[in-house]
């Protein structure tokens, strides 16, 4: 398997989020409107919200994995996320952690198709873990410090708080 095949394999996956965060995600995302109009500060597309949540999860160094019994929703296919540079940056951060979740890059070079499939599935599970940890953090803020979301700098403020 070559690099482009691996990219395609990852790209066709749809990371999921927990149903319990749907209202929050809808509240802080505005489909087709990136202007941030309205009472609350908001992102444009859903996948930007998702990428933001992943970064929050990574900064927290915390994961909130989806349990088998939990209701979930699929996200947009990974290959369609944009900007691609930020999507790739997230991928890079996950690859940096590959040994932590049991995959040495060098071993992947010799691995069979099934092993590569297993790696991609785990990679996506890891992404979901960080994203849902990020949503959990944002949900707590939304529930307890809702007024903060009226500040246009709210999402920058959260990043600064975690730096």
């Amino acid at each position, binding site marked *: 398997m*070559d690099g482009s095949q691996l990219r395609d394999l990852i790209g066709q996956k749809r990371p999921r989020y927990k149903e319990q965060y749907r209202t929050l995600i809808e509240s802080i995302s505005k489909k087709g409107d990136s202007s941030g109009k309205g009472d609350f500060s908001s992102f444009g597309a859903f996948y930007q919200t998702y990428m933001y949540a992943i970064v929050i999860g990574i900064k927290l160094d915390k994961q909130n994995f989806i349990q088998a019994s939990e209701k979930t929703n699929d996200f947009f296919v990974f290959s369609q996320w944009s*900007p691609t540079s930020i999507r790739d940056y997230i991928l890079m951060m996950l690859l940096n952690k590959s040994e932590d979740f049991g995959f040495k890059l060098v071993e992947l070079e010799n691995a069979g198709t099934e092993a590569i499939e297993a790696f991609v599935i785990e990679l996506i599970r890891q992404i979901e873990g960080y994203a849902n940890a990020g949503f959990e953090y944002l949900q707590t803020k939304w529930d307890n410090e809702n007024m903060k979301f009226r500040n246009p700098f709210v999402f920058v403020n959260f990043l600064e708080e975690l730096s």
Partner: protein
Amino acid sequence: MATIIKSISFQNFYNYYGSFNDNTYLFKEGINIINADNNMGKSKFYNGILWILKSTVYDSDLKRMVSANSSFQKMASGKVINEETNFNMGVNITFLDCDSKYSVTKSVQFSKNGNSWNTNEKLDILQTIENRDIPVLDTFDKEKIIKKIIPTELINYALLQGESMEDLVDLSSHNGLSSTIETLAGIKNLIEICEISKELSQKTKKLSNEKEKEINSSNNRVEELVQESELLENRIDSTKTQIETYKTELSEAKKKKDNLEAILLNAQNREKFRGVQKTLQNEINHYKEKKNNKLKNINSMLFSEYSPWILMGLQDQIMLFDNRRQELTAAIATQKVIDNPIKLPEGSPDIPSLKRMIRMEFCEVCGRQAPRNSDPWNHIKLVMERPGDKEKSSKNDFGSFYSNIQTTIGAFSLSIPKIAQTILEYREKADELEDIIIQKEEEKENAKLEFLNAGGSETGSDNTDKQNISDYTLAEKDILKYDELIRKGELSLNQWRARLKQIDVEIKSISTNSEIEKYRQFKEIMASVEYILNNSRERIFDEILKSLEINANRKYGELTQGNLSAGGKLSFTKQADGTVQVSIKNVNDGELTGLGTGFQRMKQLSIIMAIISSKIGNKQFDYPFISDAPFSEFGDNFINNFFKIAPNVFSQSIILIKELYDPMSENYLNDLGIKILKKMENGVIPGTFYVNVIEEKADTTNLVTKNKCYKG
């Protein structure tokens, strides 16, 4: 003994958020100053007093007085409305009057009902007798107690707002002047006697005429003359009434003309400040749009292609990935070395030949012995046991995948470390724009005030000026019309009166009956009584006017003392319509024109002081004098003079002022404020000194005013 206000407190009233205890001003005899900048509660304070005394408040949006009960929601603190669903709003005044102490509280209970509010107004009055607070329950008694603070007939002179001072001292109004003089002279009884004498005189005339007809029933000429006399009397009566109406109309037309004149004179200023407001509004819109765009752009900046804020602080990841790739490359290279040992040249011995050479301990390639375990033997064994050839060293090649990632994110290694600084600068730019907007809003507000001071209307369009010009022309025509009607009416009266005298003479010459003579004498006596009483009334009126003129000039001199430009002399002239025109004359008795608004307003203030002095003689005024922003057009010298002479006229004054305020100074006082405070501290000026402050910047809905007592 004078009425002295001991304290005024507010509860959730406009800016005065919180309990009565949080918003209490304690006052003394002398001058009580409340120094506050615009929007810090001066007019709201004044409205509290208006609510208690007159059940009205000044609505600054509508620019007019409104009934308090139509404005409760505006009167309540915006902050409390946002925070509570049940609360009380109120104003309390405690005062001393003839050794009795009273506490008057007007309050409104608010309770939220869906999206609207239910309100319930209450008036509670306590009288303190021998240290016991006794509630006053009777409505009539309550009204009487409120009037003890300032009696109704003196409210116009004791309670005034700088901007509307001209309306309060209404010497140009026919009725206004009469009621002022009547109040000053205390001649209500005399006026009543005048009315009675007029009635009696008319009755005696009627009686006399009836007797003339009865006694001279056979004389047709007498009957004719009596009938003519009755007709003329009726005409005189109705014409007098008509002339009074014309005088009132004339007075109204003059007032209208004066008002419009002032408005038209200011048209140029209005046009200027209308333009300034428009320009500033355009600038505000521009900066608001700029700021909104900047704020809207924040989330785009999080996902910017070149410097995405979302990656702030994550630059180490790039180096980490680079290391991983180098490790991977090294590991792959090592594996290849292991997987690909030396290949033997063409024609080299095959495995069976090598096995045979080991067994025979002889190298067939070089034709020499190779004993067991010797170096040549071991070499032959190594060659035989070498791993077999493989097609490829690894199954996959993900190099391009990693390389593409590294290429895509490569530029971030330079931009991510700068993100924190970029955000800081972005925030500063947004704050700068907000500061500019606030500054422009303030400039616009000032321009609006100038516009309104120049007679502009918030609701009026640019066409208002055209309407005013048309109204002015109409008022001028009305003045001419009513002047002419009054002149003609008085001419007729004189002719009819002369004819009445002729009739009297003729009847007397015809009829000489002694019995009728008694009635004639009685009629003449009553006419004389009526004339004398009316004359007295006129004389008292003139004397009061003269006294007012002298007093007003004295006060005017004191108030303008030390001023570089001479303010002239006030001249009171009685007009044909019964009104009084007050003008300012120069040393040659000519009209002094071109004086600023400060002088004009000082003229009004002098007249108020004169009216009060005329009423009370050499004593002090017995009631509190309360004034909101009376000095907005005055210079330091005027203000200094006022504080010097006011304690001699008013036993207590409460002055709401902004001209001593400096927002940049630590104690919020300008040089004049510091001077006056020192004089108070040294006992030169008796009284108290408060400064209102806003501790937390907020819009008008959440504004909270607190007071600091500098001299209690």
